[in-house]
């Protein structure tokens, strides 16, 4: 992503930062907070899915781990919110390393199913454990300050976005991940360490998700295994990323905003026809796979904007593997 787009993103971020000063409608802030959360979840999901080529169907597990860690530390151990949410991120990072090392050896569909099975197992654990409150879930002390949560959510997502922008689009890291996505064996031959890179990507995907989970828990004041460890987070993130455009940083943002906006408008003004929403969503997903294989962003780009090498479209010049290999050759892999 070139600097003009970066500047644009920063401008939008600043505008979003200032938004609560201009708009006082609490419902609007709530909607915006949730939209921002989904942007973060989708972008984090894309690190592993779009850039590295590994579909983590257990993405929800990180969200739930963050949510529950935060809830348990705050409610049972009296920790303050920032520390608890941070701890949630750390726990998720550790989990990503521990689970990632064996699981990332699997390819494609096997990895998807394995991560999904693992996250369902985590959900079952939460259902059976008394520490997590079992099926009753956990309540957090209510702190209903819409602006606070808006800014915290925006802060976390903003930090994630810009950090990932740097790591994936500026530093060689992104190219190395794409090299793994395109040809893992070849990447290895060029001197990259796929295992280490994959685990790093996994951790990068896990930590923001978990922290967002922690913020979510405090924000909604009530969590249970269904809402935080179910498939909803993984499924929606997947849809947003695929619809928006994989392997780009802005694709998931676009996908998240569009799908969430659609969902909210439908929900707010067509509540009677809510069931239709599920049908339409399913149809949208299915049709976009058929007609928009590069996602909205990818299709828009192909239609006439700048053609970016290494965005998932067939490379015109140097394949990412070679570029990454060159980068690896120059410095540490």
């Amino acid at each position, binding site marked *: 992503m070139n600097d003009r787009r970066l500047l644009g993103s920063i401008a939008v971020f600043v505008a979003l930062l200032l938004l609560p000063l201009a708009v006082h409608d609490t419902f609007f802030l709530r909607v915006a907070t949730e939209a921002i959360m989904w942007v973060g979840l989708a972008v984090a999901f894309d690190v592993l899915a779009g850039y590295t080529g590994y579909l983590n169907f257990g993405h929800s597990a990180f969200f739930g781990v963050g949510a529950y860690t935060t809830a348990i530390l705050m409610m049972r151990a009296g920790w303050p919110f920032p520390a608890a949410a941070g701890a949630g991120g750390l726990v998720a990072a550790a989990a990503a390393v521990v689970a990632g090392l064996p699981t990332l050896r699997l390819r494609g569909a096997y990895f998807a199913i394995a991560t999904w099975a693992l996250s369902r197992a985590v959900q079952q654990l939460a259902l059976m454990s008394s520490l997590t409150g079992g099926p009753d879930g956990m309540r957090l002390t209510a702190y209903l300050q819409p602006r606070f949560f808006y800014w915290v959510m925006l802060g976390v997502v903003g930090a994630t976005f810009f950090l990932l922008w740097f790591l994936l689009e500026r530093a060689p890291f992104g190219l190395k991940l794409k090299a793994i996505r395109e040809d893992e064996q070849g990447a290895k031959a060029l001197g990259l360490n796929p295992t280490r890179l994959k685990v790093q990507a996994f951790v990068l995907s896990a930590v923001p998700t978990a922290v967002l989970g922690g913020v979510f828990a405090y924000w909604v004041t009530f969590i249970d295994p269904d809402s935080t460890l179910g498939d909803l987070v993984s499924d929606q993130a997947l849809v947003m990323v695929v619809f928006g455009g994989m392997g780009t940083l802005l694709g998931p943002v676009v996908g998240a*905003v569009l799908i969430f906006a659609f969902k909210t408008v439908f929900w707010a*003004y067509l509540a009677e026809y809510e069931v239709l929403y599920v049908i339409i969503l399913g149809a949208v997903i299915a049709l976009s796979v058929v007609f928009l294989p590069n996602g909205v962003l990818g299709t828009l780009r192909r239609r006439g904007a700048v053609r970016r090498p290494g965005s998932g479209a067939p490379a015109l010049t140097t394949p990412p593997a070679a570029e990454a290999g060159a980068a690896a050759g120059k410095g540490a892999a």
Partner: protein
Amino acid sequence: MRRALRWATLVALTVAVPAAGQEAREFFKVGVVAELSGDLATGGNVTKRGYDLWAQAVNEAGGIPVGAKKYPVKLFYADAQSNPSQGAAAAERLITQEHVDFILGPYASGVTIAVAPVVEKYKVPMITGSAESPMIWRQKFLYTFGTVPPVNFTGAAAIQTLAGLSPAPKTAVIFGSNDTFSKATAEAFEGAAKKAGIKVLKFNIVPAGQDLTPLMSAVKGMRPDLVAFGGHDEELIKLVKGMRQIDFAPSAILMHYGVTEPAFVEALKDDANQVFGGAVWTATTRTKSEILWKDAPSYEAAARKAFGVGADYTQAGCSAAGIAFQVALQKVGAPPPLSEAKRAELIKALEAVDVDTFYGKVKFATDGEFYHANVGLAPLTVQIQGGKVAVVGPKKDADAAAQYPMTPWSKR
């Protein structure tokens, strides 16, 4: 491009949101937060029906009398999507966008717990006709009430009735699905069984939706007198079917209110007969009232006319929630729109409510572990007889004798 997109969406959302306006109205705006979609849509829609029926009846009578005038009610729906965070968002939307005067609450306890802090913050009274978990009342929310007594209040009663039958059951096997309501039900059964001197041979919480036949086969060998199960509609159907398939008929099968749902009898047909359940209201309960419906059968008839299907106690509880508001509003005597001060008065009025409705007595506790839950109702034990729900306990409310012990499957 993305920038434009983002701006466009933000602007669209801002513009789409209707501007605030609190002019005087000729009607009460009532918010309904219910699970209209998602996993709990079945229950959520029953809840909605209960609220709809109340609104229809009250409007037919001209509206809620306040002072000299009558004000009709208009319902505004928001879907909680069976998700606590969406429930909270739904409540916030109804309060800040639609400026509702009060709220009729969700079906599920989890959603209710997420909605309660929101109504507490904006000081908008809410009554839920359905959420039964004791967790809610322990939090002592000032602005949240419930017309259905908590499950631990009602679960024990059914066991007590069964313990009083002859020959008294001596052993029991008790299960519950691993969700808030079912687990609480099973625990209530267990506690009551132990108190009644019934030996609990096996007590397990099982994952929701499982095929329990292997478990039932094992239990059959234990030959318990009573099999009690806490779960939701589909699980109840599967369990009875499973027991039928392995020809396992204990002296009594006890479930909870799921047996009163029309789907239960419809799916199982004759096999549903003689199953016991717990309820706080049935279409034949002997209640008398002067408000809207004079007794239970009248309500049932109205429900059938409006929706083509009979009512269960969740639906009834929801209509009763509307009635509670109606009664309290009459007392407060404030016309719409309700100011924050008037809403606080409404809370006081609700706490003082003590009214006989078609549903039974509505009286909210003002302290203790059932704070703001309805403690005016007496739990009933029911049994399916001849494809219909019959009240078999306690004695003073019974309209039929319990058919006990159960006729073996093969003899039916």
